């Protein structure tokens, strides 16, 4: 056992004293302050006790306690309490005191700094009747506190006269054998001067260390703000302004074209892959975020075009077509419709929702290809690939399985081994098998074209430098891009041996198509071209157009590195991305969304929950993975609905409207603003400003908090002013009730505008209920925010009714069960058989689908058995209900697959 200490370090004093007092045998080494003893601490940590087991104790109180426990009993609760008090209360004060006395020569201020802790100690000693802190014998608490206080109390000039009990106790401990000699060893009789070099190396103590430990910076700005007189007057002045003269917000005229002198904003959302039903994470990551921003941009008066579409080419589509016995085109048609209807339900307001399998796509992709070719940015190389002769095709990585060359796991996939996690080149697999026919594929080499990214690297970096510094790129987008560049770019293959894709026009590469990563982003251009023939005014106009790309972070490299390289190399004055907005991932409860395991809520199921689209939008935006991963949770969704929407926002808007209806005959009363009202206007105006600043930077989730803050302020205002009481009072009280009511409905009107990007339907409902003029929409969000009195005295409002409904616990519990994925864990079918298709995948299909029907019929029978079994076992009601609802879902799908109308089977009215 070895103890490392240094001279002039006050913490070493107590440790040495403890060593002397307990008489424990231990080597002592004096080292300098910077000595690094503890391998895992980057900073010096003296004193340190090196234990026989090889562990290190690096804090003085723990060392002292250990030394005492080696030869004695475990320390008592009381001892522990003193040690904790010393470490958390006394030490910060001592550090400040020593800093003042040793480094700043302000010894006179020491008593003030130490007064609090010393009072506590003094009172405790005076109250107790024992000689030492915890009894009649010296304990670890005495040694630690004595050692800590020694540097201060031993210096006569700092002696604190009015703590008599402390003084007596201090002298008693000082007389204990060993204590004085420990002090001598550390301070060398030099007093405060001895600690100078140690103190110089300590961080300066904070003057205020009483910050509550659980408040993050984001939360602290939400506290009570001080509002100045000027702010109040300014807010009142704005309030009295008129609404914008222009009577109607300009309805969008399609096609939207860039306008000289306006801010032209082109918004894209990552193109969803066609053969997957999007889950909530996909929806919030791309289309919903982009939709909110697009709607917001229009409120701000920008000229916005928002395009998106389905990404339809690739092996996955080919394969899906094979599975379902359809052509790839039929598959795309079918799923494009599924996507469209989901986004429609979520009120995603695309200006155009297109697809990549169009002639424009071929035209534009081939044009870019020839330009790259002409400019010398394409290089040729041969690639070894696996080809299945039986299936007559080259196998994409995911269609090969075999033994992992690294760990010999027999079922490694063509791109990665699930066991050891290493990346694999498909040709390296041992005993490869075609996943479709189980035949052994052959290695064939074939010629391919590569985009010469290294040659474009400098140009790319120059452009990135400009774009990331002038635009709003999310932190993860910058980080991922940097890491790609740091690793150096390599040529990337842009051709594939497939049929379902954009054909490569080069005669040497007939029979080949473009690789999807090259092809898909060109979809943005071709989709716009399908929207307007003058698409080049958007896409070849970098000086007039600002391009926003929305996506989840897994898509970043293609949008920040690869696609820009294609466009830079093509040299045709393309519009490159100015603002790259990437979200992190949204998880589902504690886990990931998984289609195959039936876990999570997918786009088409959201509407079956009975929860309105606006509420879904609200919650997804509330938990938008902005800056960090987040999780969808049913319980949280219910909580947010009930607390934020129902009790906060809805409650406030409803109250204002109800007061107007009940107390003022439906007409907005006259308002005489008092100081208090002006203060509220200023506070609301400030929140509005924050909202605009955040939204301008696409901080969609953060901005939403400011909407909710406004209604919270509003609720508080109503509660304090109690208009429902004042209305029964005298003339001035009645007038006060009128002012409060009038201000409240006007705030509600402002809220309806701020909510528009988030909850378009609710936003419109509020304006309908208030009978608000449409001009309020394009007034409130102008400039830094303009909160005007849109509903003047005498304005007649419409019929007010509640905006939101409570989500009940049992309803949520049932939904959680339904989407929790238990159907698979509970099922007994062999793993190789695909799981029964989950819920409403096929809902939009019109014709019948015998293959699917057969599978579904089996699934229905199996689920029926399960329900019967559960009932006979008298299982819990909730479990049975959940299983029954699954059964009904399956039956519904079966009906669709059989070509019948998806009428739900009549439910036996057993109980409700």
């Amino acid at each position: 056992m070895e103890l490392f200490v240094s001279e002039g370090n006050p913490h070493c004093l107590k440790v040495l004293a403890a060593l002397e007092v307990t008489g424990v045998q231990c080597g002592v080494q004096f080292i300098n302050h910077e000595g690094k003893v503890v391998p895992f601490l980057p900073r010096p940590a003296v004193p340190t006790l090196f234990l026989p087991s090889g562990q290190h104790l690096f804090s003085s109180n723990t060392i002292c306690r250990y030394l005492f426990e080696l030869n004695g009993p475990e320390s008592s609760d009381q001892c522990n309490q003193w040690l904790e008090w010393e470490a958390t209360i006394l030490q910060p004060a001592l550090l400040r005191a020593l800093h003042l006395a040793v480094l700043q020569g302000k010894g006179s201020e020491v008593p003030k700094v130490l007064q609090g802790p010393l009072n506590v100690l003094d009172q405790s000693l005076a109250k107790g009747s024992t000689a030492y802190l915890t009894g009649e014998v010296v304990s670890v608490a005495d040694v630690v506190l004595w050692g800590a206080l020694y540097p201060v109390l031993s210096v006569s000039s700092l002696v604190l006269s009015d703590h008599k009990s402390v003084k007596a106790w201090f002298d008693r401990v000082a007389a204990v054998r060993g204590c004085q000699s420990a002090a001598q060893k550390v301070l060398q009789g030099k007093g405060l001067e001895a600690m100078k070099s140690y103190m110089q190396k300590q961080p300066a103590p904070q003057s205020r260390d009483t910050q509550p430990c659980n408040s993050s910076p984001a939360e602290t700005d939400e506290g009570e703000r001080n509002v100045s007189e000027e702010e109040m007057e300014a807010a009142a002045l704005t309030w009295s302004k008129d609404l914008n003269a222009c009577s109607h917000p300009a309805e969008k005229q399609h096609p939207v074209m860039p306008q000289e002198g306006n801010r032209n904003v082109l918004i894209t959302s990552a193109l969803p892959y066609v053969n997957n039903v999007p889950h909530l994470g996909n929806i919030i990551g791309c289309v919903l975020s982009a939709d909110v921003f697009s709607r917001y941009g229009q409120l701000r008066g920008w000229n916005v075009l928002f395009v998106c579409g389905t990404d339809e080419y690739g092996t996955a589509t080919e394969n899906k077509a094979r599975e379902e016995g359809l052509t790839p085109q039929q598959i795309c048609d079918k799923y494009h419709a599924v996507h469209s209807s989901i986004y429609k339900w979520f009120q995603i307001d695309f200006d155009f929702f297109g697809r990549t399998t169009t002639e424009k796509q071929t035209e534009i992709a081939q044009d870019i290809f020839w330009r790259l070719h002409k400019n010398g940015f394409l290089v040729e190389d041969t690639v070894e690939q696996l080809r299945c002769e039986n299936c007559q095709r080259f196998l994409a990585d995911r269609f090969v399985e075999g033994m992992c060359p690294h760990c010999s796991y027999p079922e490694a996939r063509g791109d990665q081994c699930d066991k050891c996690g290493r990346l694999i080149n498909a040709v390296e697999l041992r005993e490869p098998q075609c996943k479709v026919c189980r035949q052994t594929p052959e290695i064939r080499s074939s010629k391919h074209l590569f985009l010469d990214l290294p040659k474009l690297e400098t140009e790319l970096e120059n452009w990135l430098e400009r774009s990331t510094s002038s635009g709003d790129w999310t932190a993860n987008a910058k980080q991922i891009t940097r890491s790609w560049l740091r690793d150096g770019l390599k040529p990337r293959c842009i051709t594939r041996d497939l049929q379902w894709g954009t054909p490569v026009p080069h005669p040497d590469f007939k029979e080949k198509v473009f690789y999807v990563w090259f092809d898909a982003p060109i979809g943005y251009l071709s989709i716009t071209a399908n929207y307007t023939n003058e698409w080049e005014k958007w896409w070849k106009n970098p000086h007039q157009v600002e391009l926003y790309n929305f996506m989840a972070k897994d898509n970043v490299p293609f949008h920040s590195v690869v696609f820009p390289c294609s466009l830079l190399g093509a040299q045709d004055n393309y519009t490159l991305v100015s603002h790259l907005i990437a979200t992190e991932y949204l998880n589902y409860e504690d886990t990931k969304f998984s289609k195959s395991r039936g876990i999570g809520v997918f786009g088409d199921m959201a509407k079956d929950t009975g929860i309105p689209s606006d509420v879904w939008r609200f919650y997804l935006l509330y938990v938008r993975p902005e800056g960090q991963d987040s999780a969808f949770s049913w319980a949280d969704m219910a909580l947010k609905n009930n607390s934020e929407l129902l009790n906060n926002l809805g409650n406030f808007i409803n109250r204002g409207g109800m007061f107007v209806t009940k107390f003022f005959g439906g007409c907005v009363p006259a308002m005489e603003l008092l100081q208090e009202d002006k203060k509220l206007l200023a506070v609301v105006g400030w929140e509005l400003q924050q909202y605009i600043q955040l939204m301008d930077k696409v901080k969609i989730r953060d901005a939403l908090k400011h909407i909710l803050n406004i209604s919270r302020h509003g609720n508080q205002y109503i509660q304090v002013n109690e208009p429902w009481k004042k209305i029964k009072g005298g003339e001035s009280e009645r007038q006060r009730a009128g002012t409060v009511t009038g201000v409240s409905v006007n705030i509600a009107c402002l809220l309806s505008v701020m909510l528009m990007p988030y909850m378009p339907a609710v936003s419109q409902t509020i304006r309908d209920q208030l009978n608000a003029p449409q001009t309020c929409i394009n007034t409130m969000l102008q400039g830094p925010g303009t909160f005007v009195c849109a509903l003047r005295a005498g304005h007649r409002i419409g019929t007010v009714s509640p905006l939101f409904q409570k989500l009940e616990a049992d309803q949520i519990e049932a939904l959680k069960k339904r989407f929790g994925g238990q159907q698979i864990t509970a099922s007994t079918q062999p793993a190789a058989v695909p799981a029964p298709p989950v819920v409403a995948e096929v809902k939009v299909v019109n014709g019948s689908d015998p293959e699917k029907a057969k599978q579904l019929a089996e699934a229905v029978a199996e689920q029926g058995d399960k329900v019967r079994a559960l009932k006979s076992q008298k299982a819990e009601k909730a479990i049975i209900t959940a299983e029954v609802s699954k059964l009904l879902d399956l039956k519904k799908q079966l009906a669709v697959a059989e070509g019948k109308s998806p009428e739900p089977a009549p439910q036996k009215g057993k109980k409700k």
Partner: protein
Amino acid sequence: MERTPKGYTSNFVEAGLKLFIQSHRNMALRELASLEKYLGLKKPNKYSTQGDKKVPVLQNNNAPPLVGLVTIACHLVKEAKRPELLGDGAEGRAVVQQWLEYRVTKLDSHIEDTKSILKDLNLYMQDKVYLAGNQLTLADVLMYYGIHSIILDLAVQEKEQYMNVARWFDHIQHHPGVRHHLPPVVVLRNRLYTSRHH
């Protein structure tokens, strides 16, 4: 998952909600309540707080009140007759105490910045499953409670940077009965920013 939004403090909030928020504000009390549940203590103890720093105080019927998070937590463990949670032997106990002290001094004081705390722990946890010894101790539980808000705020790439801490954290939050009042934090096992350490 989101933290409970602030701003509920206005005087109109129902009493019950207010109480909830206050106890939420005082994380130490929430921690102790969770610890009691974890320990399976039947009757809940009475707590109050003291001073600006809201140091928790345990009211005792037949003894003077106990003050301080670690002190009370150790007392509860003894009361629940779970001495193994305080470590094995003098050395084991010392290591547990070491990290408990680290928790209330370094982590709670904000003298150290978050990064250096994560760095310390990450290096320390490199070859360890638990903070002290080979089983869960009170040190793990209190460190988990204390560090939760920091981990919650980490971006994915930071969680990867402090991978050992993230692994330990994930392990502890899934320990049966530990989590209680805190929302789970998602820790991804597969790495996204793989080139970071090149």
